[in-house]
């Protein structure tokens, strides 16, 4: 079974649509910015990849993550040729932080925020009349988890059309705790490069419309071949190679593909030494014998870590890469870590002229929750 992706939308620091973001990734200009509203004196890290949409004057406002979410959901359903009445369409939202930034603004600054604002069903009801809505706080694999469960709903006959979306705004508690635990403080997010020092947060949202094969009104952007979801059950924050290996192998099995069938891998690539070493070691093993092996890239070097939505954002970039036959480079990657040397990481300028048919997208979250998706070009 495959599932059609018929609608796509995204917003991030480097663009307000999947095409804008893809073009920026290909252009490869440094995109980090000094912290926009957090008190720089309180943190060691000075940069992040925030969306620059706060009002003039510098104060933060609540519900930015919710605003991006309703925007991308509206754009994705329009892109799929559907109306804005989602009363009969399930909406599955993956997130790391929910509206915890709004919670902080309520607690610290008495912003007008209620318990019902913490999950996204409240806004989806008000905006689209949607009731079959779910907020999954599944850390940084949340949107690929949600995609997997959306394909289950269609397979089980519970729906023909499901909207899958993700959103996250940077929080002081999250940014700050990361700031506390990282040994070296990164100036920029540099996945798989020997200069990598750690992760910096980004902000963003992404949405897709997933439909039972052949039931949509418009063109099909790509087809989901399979999504694996599992858990390391090993460590609260560190990744585990065994769990990640199982996730990749299960995704291949579900999609009915072998390692040599995969043309492109969108890496999780957070820029933490622990992630980068673990992920590239597992990939070297999984793709051993599949030479020359797939192209690989990692978008967080330019978007920052957009947390819950990052997996879906990577997926959208994979879809556009397959459409264009172009793979954006990993910004700042000049000297790959030893574990990544044999991988087909794109450096410097975009890799053009490839025939890309099948892509793998990785997303790994805190708590060892892993999701791997296989998508196929629709031609």
């Amino acid at each position, binding site marked *: 079974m495959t599932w059609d992706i018929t609608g796509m939308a995204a917003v991030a620091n480097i663009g307000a649509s999947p095409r804008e973001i893809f073009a920026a990734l290909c252009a490869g200009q440094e995109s980090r910015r000094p912290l926009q509203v957090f008190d720089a004196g309180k943190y060691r890290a000075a940069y992040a990849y925030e969306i620059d949409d706060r009002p003039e004057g510098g104060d933060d406002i609540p519900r930015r993550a919710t605003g991006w979410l309703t925007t991308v959901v509206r754009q994705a359903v329009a892109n799929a040729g559907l109306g804005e009445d989602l009363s009969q369409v399930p909406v599955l939202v993956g997130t790391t932080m929910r509206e*915890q930034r709004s919670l902080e603004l309520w607690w*610290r600054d008495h912003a007008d925020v209620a318990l019902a604002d913490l999950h996204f069903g409240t806004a989806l009801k008000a905006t689209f009349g949607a009731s*079959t809505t779910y907020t999954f706080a599944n850390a940084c694999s949340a949107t690929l988890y949600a995609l997997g*469960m959306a394909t289950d709903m269609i397979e*089980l*006959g519970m*729906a023909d059309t499901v909207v899958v979306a993700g959103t996250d705004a940077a929080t002081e508690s999250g940014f700050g705790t990361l700031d506390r635990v990282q040994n070296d403080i990164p100036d920029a997010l540099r996945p798989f490069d020997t200069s990598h020092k750690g992760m910096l947060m980004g902000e963003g949202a992404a949405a897709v419309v997933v439909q039972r094969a052949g039931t949509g009104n418009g063109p099909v952007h790509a087809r989901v071949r399979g999504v694996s*979801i599992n858990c390391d059950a090993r460590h*609260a924050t560190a990744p585990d190679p065994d769990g990640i290996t199982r996730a990749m192998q299960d995704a291949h099995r579900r999609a009915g593909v072998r390692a040599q069938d995969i043309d492109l891998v969108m890496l999780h690539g957070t820029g933490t030494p622990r992630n980068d070493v673990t992920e590239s070691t597992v990939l070297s093993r999984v793709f051993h014998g599949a030479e020359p092996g797939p192209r690989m890239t990692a978008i967080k070097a330019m978007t920052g870590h957009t947390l819950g939505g990052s997996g879906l954002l990577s997926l959208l970039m994979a879809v556009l890469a397959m459409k264009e036959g172009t793979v954006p480079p990993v910004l700042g990657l000049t000297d790959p870590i030893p574990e990544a040397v044999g991988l087909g990481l794109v450096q410097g300028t975009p890799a053009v002229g490839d025939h890309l048919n099948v892509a793998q997208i990785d997303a790994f979250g805190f708590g060892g929750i892993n999701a791997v998706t296989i998508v196929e070009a629709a031609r």
Partner: protein
Amino acid sequence: MTETTTARMSHPRTREVVVTGIGLALPGVATYRDLLGPLPVEGGLDPASELRGYEMRHKDRASRLALRAAEFALRNAGLTDAEATFTGMADATAVVVSTNLGNVDAVCAAADTIAREGTRGLSPLGLPETSSSVIAAWVAIRFGLRGPNLTVCNGVTSGLDALAWARNLIVAGRAEAAVVVGVEPAKEVAMRLLCAPSIDAAAAVVLEPADAAAARGIQPRATVAGHARAGDLAAAMTAVGVTEERSVGLWLAGEQDAESGQLLAVTRRIDLEAQLGPLSGALGVLQCAAAAAHLDSDATGNVLATAGGPRHDATAALLLTP
């Protein structure tokens, strides 16, 4: 679409999923059978003594409560040995946690600390808690459960929704068993958000396919027969197939609303929150435990559990049958 999606939510391709274990960790409820009578009763969780020990070190309160309830539920399902080690299929056992307030105190405390003394004042041990997924991770780590790991933060319907997603994971073949935990800690920020005092509450149930339970010789406590999250109570009830009043022997209602009495005139109606205070993400799983108590007893009829309503973004309904 000619047929509504919500209506079809309740009829996925059938692989019957049943409740095989129940575990509670909350004060004022000693056993799940107490949930049918007036509450609170004497006994139940003593947070001062029962949330300590080696396994609880460096874990947040919600995770501790969840670990207790999950341990009891797995034991009750016959899936642990004398050392409380999991003996089931670890690669195919899912963890599904429902919580809305689990880490809200940690988030606000971190923001306070940063404002006061910068990030150097934070404890590195607080890192897992910044993510709401921490509770499900600790449950998976404690019992080595490597199947899907899901955290549902979906407002007052979360617990019922979590049960439905656990059932989906089993019906879709992604899991052969699931531990579902609804948990909320009684902490300051949580209570301020709830605008009411609340209690520490965790409830866990184990779900398995009926055939797997039968193969293990386990008597099912309840069957998860249908779930819907819909715009109002009438739509949710229709979607789960509650059209005949006689079939429902117990209605585990959420908040009262004016019309609800007219929709379903059942002989017995229990509002757990009216007795225990707001339960938020713990409610639905506790309702499932209460349903099992009803279905265990001499009483007749199915159990309808509902949550949400006009003051919320949806109403969820879960139908439990023998």
